[in-house]
Structure formats: C-alpha cells, structure tokens
C-alpha cells in the first residue's frame, strides 16, 4: 500500500502531471491565474472536487450501469461543485464575485472527468481519493507557478503584497502578462521547459 501511494503521488506530481504531460483541464483555471490569491482558491476548489468525486465514483462503481456512467459522473461532480459554490458565496462573497463563472466551470474541467474515468471507475475508493488528490496537487503546482510569474512580473505584487524590487520604479511592469495573452505565453514556455527536462531524463535512462 505504501509503495502504491508513493507511485500515485509521483505520477500526479511529476511523471504523469495533468498539465505537463496530459495537457488536460487548463480551460477553466488558466483564466484566474492573473492573481495568486484567486488561483489558490480555485485550485483548492479543484482539489476538493477531483478527490471527492473520484472517490464517490469509485464507491458507486459497482452500482452504476455502464451506459449512463458519464451522466452519473457529471452529476457527482456537479454536486461537489455546488457545495463549493454555495460555501464561497456565503462566506467569501468578494472572492465568489471575482472568480465569476469559473467555479461552476470546474464541472466541465476535463481533468475531473478524466480522473474519474481513468482511475476512479476501476480502483477502490481510498486509492481513487489519493489519485485525485495528487493529480490535482500536481495541477496546482504548475498553476501557482504561472500565477506567481504573472502577478510578480505584471503587477509587482505577490498575494497582493508589494514585492521589493518588482514594485519599485526600476521595474517596468509587464502589463501584457496580466492580460490574457500573458497566460498563454507563460503556460507555453512552462510546458516547453517541463517537457524538455522529461525528454532529457528519458534519454539518459537506459
């Protein structure tokens, strides 16, 4: 079990990273990477949704008829997303407003469905939960990296606090990074770096 956990963790964080390798589910989350705080909340919502819906799908896997399983999975995901949405609206309305429709769009995030289909449907609940958790964590790491780049270089702040050099007069703020094109560029370059490292590793491996 311990080796299994380690393998799941490594797969999610590095070897089979949802963004770096599978390039899945960037749609709804890339949009909020202009601020680190937004990204954190969004990723927390995603971690919650992926791990719990994967576990739920796994618990119900014996009961679900095969031909309607997509619909069942979607409803399970929607159930968790609604919980997140209602909680955010009740306790943190400003954040809920600034995230706009993107919380709801977690439902159609390919990564949630992807993990349910690829892992939850065929494995016991505990492992499915862990798999969802680490896949979502791997996803979070990359998105936080993007958000940090965009916020520090584009606005000179990190989590809203001014960063010493970048908020000063000597740094010409890269406004373009806060605008939508910046997200595409940063993600594209990150993918490039990520894949180059992985390819190099493959080459050195016998």
């Amino acid at each position, binding site marked *: 079990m311990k080796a299994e956990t380690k393998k799941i963790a490594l797969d999610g964080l590095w070897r089979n990273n949802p963004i770096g390798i599978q*390039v*899945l*589910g*960037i*749609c*709804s989350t*890339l*949009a909020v990477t202009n601020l680190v705080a937004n990204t954190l909340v969004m990723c927390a919502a995603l971690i919650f949704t992926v791990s719990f819906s994967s576990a739920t799908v796994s618990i119900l896997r014996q009961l679900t008829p095969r031909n309607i399983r997509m*619909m069942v999975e*979607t*409803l399970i995901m*929607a159930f968790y*997303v*609604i919980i997140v*949405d*209602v909680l955010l609206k009740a306790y943190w309305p400003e954040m809920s407003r600034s995230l*706009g*429709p993107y919380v*709801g*769009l977690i*439902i*159609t*995030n*390919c990564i949630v*469905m992807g993990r349910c289909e690829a892992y939850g449907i065929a494995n016991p609940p505990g492992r499915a939960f862990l798999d969802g958790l680490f896949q979502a964590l791997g996803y979070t790491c990359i998105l936080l990296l993007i958000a940090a780049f965009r916020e520090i270089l584009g606005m000179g702040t990190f989590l809203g606090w001014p960063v010493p050099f970048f908020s000063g007069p000597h740094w010409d703020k890269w406004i*373009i990074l806060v*605008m*939508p*094109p*910046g*997200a*595409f*560029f940063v*993600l*594209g*370059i990150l*993918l*490039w*770096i*990520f*894949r*180059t490292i992985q*390819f190099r590793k493959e080459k050195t491996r016998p």
Partner: protein
Amino acid sequence: MNFGSEISEAFIVCIAAIFTQNILLAYFLGLCPFLGVSREIRAAFGLGLAVIFVMTATTLLNWLAYHYVLVPLQLEFFRFILFIIIIAAFVQLTEMVIERYSPLLYQSLGVFLPLITVNCAILGASLFMVIRDYSFIVTIGYGLGSGIGWFLAIIAMAGIRQRLTNDRIPRGLQGPGIALIIAGLMALAFTGFTGVLQGQ
C-alpha cells in the same frame, strides 16, 4: 428598454463577443478541443460550425430555463446541473435529428457533436449570460457572437498549425506548447480590436 435599443445592444454584444471579448482568447474557455482538434482545417471547420449552432441554441434554452423555472422556484444554485442536462439533451437530440434527416451533414458534423457536451465554452457562455444579466434578445446576440468568435479562433489556429507541420520546432515545444504560444500571439492580435467598440 424598448425593442430597437435592445436590438442594437444585442448587436454590440455580438460584435464584442467575437472580437474584443472572444470567449476563447480572452476567457480561456474551450481550450481542450481547441488544442486537440486544430491540426487540420476540415475538422476545425466542422467542430466550429457545430459549436456556433449548439452555443446559440443552448444559451437561449438555458435563458428560458433559468428565468422561467429556476428563478420562480428560487433554485438558482441548481443551475449548474440543469444547464449541463439541457446541453447534453440538446446535443443528443440534434445528433438524432441530423442522423435521421441529413446523413450528409451527419457525416461531416456528427463526430463532433458528442465532443461538444464537455466543451466548457458552451457551459461558460450560459453562466456568463446569467452573471451579466442579459435580456433574451441580447442573449441571442451573445450566444451567436461567442460561437462565431470560437469558430474564427479555431479556424485561424488550424490554418497556422497546418503550415507548421514541416517546420523544425524544438522537441519540447511541439504539440500543445507551440499551439499555446500561437494562441498567445492570436490573443495579442485580438486585443488590438479593443477600442473598436466605444463604451465596452
């Protein structure tokens, strides 16, 4: 608001959704199929047309469902599930109708329809429509404009990627990497439209 000004607002919203607030390049919705199906123009064209049609129709259906079912019952938080079900049902229905009456259209469009159910742009357009509180007529313009905007973006992308097939791209950048960089350049070009519409 009278009818004439609603029409003109719908027109403005439509143009804005195509150019300045493109649902793909400014809001990042529908990126997965955008990266996956943009290798050749033919496929991109089929998918783009299907998106225009489904997006226009489902935003209207969802508008009706939201304002005549959910709001009176005070079940607004239920909208995620209802919208998804409506979208899935509509796509399924369209598929059956097309298969029955127009096999030719089914051949070119049919394979893309199931893909659309999970396209976040479709659900996203409906959610934006609710958040921005559009009226029914403005929603027509918004749905149509968003669909056309997505269509334009994926066609342009497929055209560019087809020309890239023979170019030497660093191995790590091939596939999605270069596609994202191109998307960034396209988004940059589209921001050039800012200011076309005053007051937007």
